[in-house]
């Protein structure tokens, strides 16, 4: 049906002819290929292939669009370029061994993924986690949320045309990385959580750094609100772009801030509170417009709420206490025990070799509110140290599915902004 582009009629350039022709030639050679339908004499309908190597697709997303002039009549998303078979790997690893793989799913908020896995395993294995460990997890999860939203803010506004924002948000992210470096010993892929607690307690330096961040960040956020909220270019670029109603949003299964921007206050932290979120005082920001601007407001307000939650955590957190379950059959012993006692060493070895074994035939699901939406683990156990089946319910997958519907009828120039506003992470979606 399609034919190569030898018969595209181009207006002959008036000025700089050689330069223009060279430019067209280089476009033909480039990865984005343009095909023209023969039965369409005005050549307004075409198929455009965007990605998988495209800086605005936030990874390796491929979008195939059929255009009518500037309007996308229909589009298809091609995913799977980052498929690593994480679920298959999970079936061949102990639960604790699988933890570092979760870091690499949604690599912008590794701490949330660790905690999601830990909570799911703790639920199926019926374990209680000490209070201080839970508060440490909550604080770090909220920091991860801020970190993820900061990256979204930087890249989304970069997609909309303002480059310097990226530098400002990355300056703040750098502080968060320093905090994670101090807390977990890693900047990016933290793997700090352990089944039954966390690896190590906050050091005084780490605590001071977090408190400093909590003190200073709201001012920064206020400044950003000031520069964006009434910014003509930014608002015009986002208002009404990629809009979707709440019924449609539910029907296509959106998750997280994208769903809340349509007016549905579905947040696992209040829908089904886990950890100590039921004792926290915070709001779930929602909007009703369902467009890109609404998603922007939701995420910005969420960052402010996260700061509030961290503050409350510090108030309520027990000053001292264990940070891991004191049961060597269920969780790793502390390094002191491992180095200085025989039993500790044996237990450490056993934990590494077999790990925790949930009862045979158990099936359970646990979800947390990750920065991008509901992140859940469905685990089926056969009584060994490996899960029989571990299904990851990832928010980016749900959101990308929605993107296929949202992009229909949009202008082609808005594609990039809409993708930026949905904030997909391909590592999360492709598993």
């Amino acid at each position, binding site marked *: 049906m399609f034919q190569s582009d030898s018969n595209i009629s181009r207006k002959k350039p008036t000025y700089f002819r050689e330069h223009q022709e060279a430019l067209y030639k280089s476009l033909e050679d480039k990865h984005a290929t343009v095909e023209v339908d023969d039965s369409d004499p005005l050549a307004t309908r075409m198929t455009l292939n965007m990605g998988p190597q495209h800086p605005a697709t936030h990874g390796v997303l491929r979008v195939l669009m059929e255009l009518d002039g500037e309007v996308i009549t229909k589009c298809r998303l091609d*995913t*799977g370029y980052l*498929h690593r*078979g994480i*679920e*298959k*790997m999970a079936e*061949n690893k102990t639960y604790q061994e699988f933890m570092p793989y979760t870091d690499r799913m949604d690599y912008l908020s590794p701490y949330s993924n660790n905690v999601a896995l830990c909570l799911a395993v703790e*639920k*199926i294995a019926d374990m209680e986690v000490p209070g201080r460990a839970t508060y440490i997890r909550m604080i770090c999860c909220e920091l991860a949320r801020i970190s993820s939203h900061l990256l979204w803010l930087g890249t989304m506004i970069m997609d909309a045309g303002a480059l310097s924002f990226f530098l400002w948000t990355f300056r703040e992210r750098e502080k968060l990385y320093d905090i994670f470096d101090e807390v977990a010993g890693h900047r990016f892929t933290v793997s700090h959580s352990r089944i039954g607690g966390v690896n190590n307690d906050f050091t005084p330096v780490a605590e001071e750094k977090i408190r400093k961040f909590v003190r200073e960040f709201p001012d920064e956020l206020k400044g950003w609100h000031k520069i964006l909220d009434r910014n003509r270019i930014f608002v015009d670029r986002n208002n009404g772009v990629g809009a979707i109603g709440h019924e449609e949003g*539910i*029907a*296509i*299964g959106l998750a997280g801030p994208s769903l809340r921007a349509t007016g*549905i206050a*579905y947040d696992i932290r209040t*829908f*089904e509170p886990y950890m100590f979120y039921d004792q926290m005082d915070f709001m779930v920001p929602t909007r009703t417009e369902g467009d890109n601007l609404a998603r922007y407001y939701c995420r910005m307000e969420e960052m402010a709420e996260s700061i509030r939650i961290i503050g409350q955590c510090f108030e309520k957190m027990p000053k001292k206490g264990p940070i891991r379950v004191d049961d060597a059959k269920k969780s790793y012993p502390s390094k002191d025990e491992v180095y200085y006692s025989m039993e500790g060493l044996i237990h450490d070895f056993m934990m590494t070799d077999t790990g925790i074994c949930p009862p045979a035939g*158990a*099936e*359970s*699901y646990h979800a947390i509110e990750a920065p991008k939406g*509901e992140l*859940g683990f*469905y685990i*089926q156990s056969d009584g060994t140290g490996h899960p*029989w*089946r571990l*299904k990851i*319910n990832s928010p980016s*997958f*749900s959101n*990308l*599915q*929605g993107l296929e*519907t949202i992009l229909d009828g949009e202008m082609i120039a808005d594609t990039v902004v809409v993708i930026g506003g949905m904030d997909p992470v391909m590592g999360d979606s*492709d*598993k």
Partner: protein
Amino acid sequence: MNIEIRDNLLQDIREYMGEDLLELNLEYTHPLLRIKRDRLHDACRFLKNTLHFIYLNEIIGADRFTSEDRFEVIYHLISLRNRQRLFLKVRVEEENPVLPTVTDIWKSANWNEREVFDMFGIRFEGHPDMRRIFLPEDFKYYPLRKEFPLLGVPGSLEMPNTTPDHD
């Protein structure tokens, strides 16, 4: 999670499904139901239209590795009005694994069903776009089936050369 609401919901489901409700597991916070395969589409319609499970969150496939009813497909449903989650399970046999699609009930089943097909080879009858979602169409295996080796099948996909000497 309100126990009273949950029990009312389950009572409604029990009445509607009757004998076809094969298993009801309340051990792990979220109710897990197993129903007869033939009633799947009917049950989904009932759950959505009467009991307000309007949000299909995901579809989970699983390989039980048994000689009969080998595969399991689990539908994860949420009722926002009653703040309830529900897991609905059906089993599929190994020979000719086919299920009716639920894309006409929940639009979000589209990609989820494609994922189950990609990983387990369970076909969904009536699905508008039954392609693999992660792996390329040229790939002839279903990787999450238990007999698929962890290291993959060498030569199953044609890969480009990694060194410049060729070609």
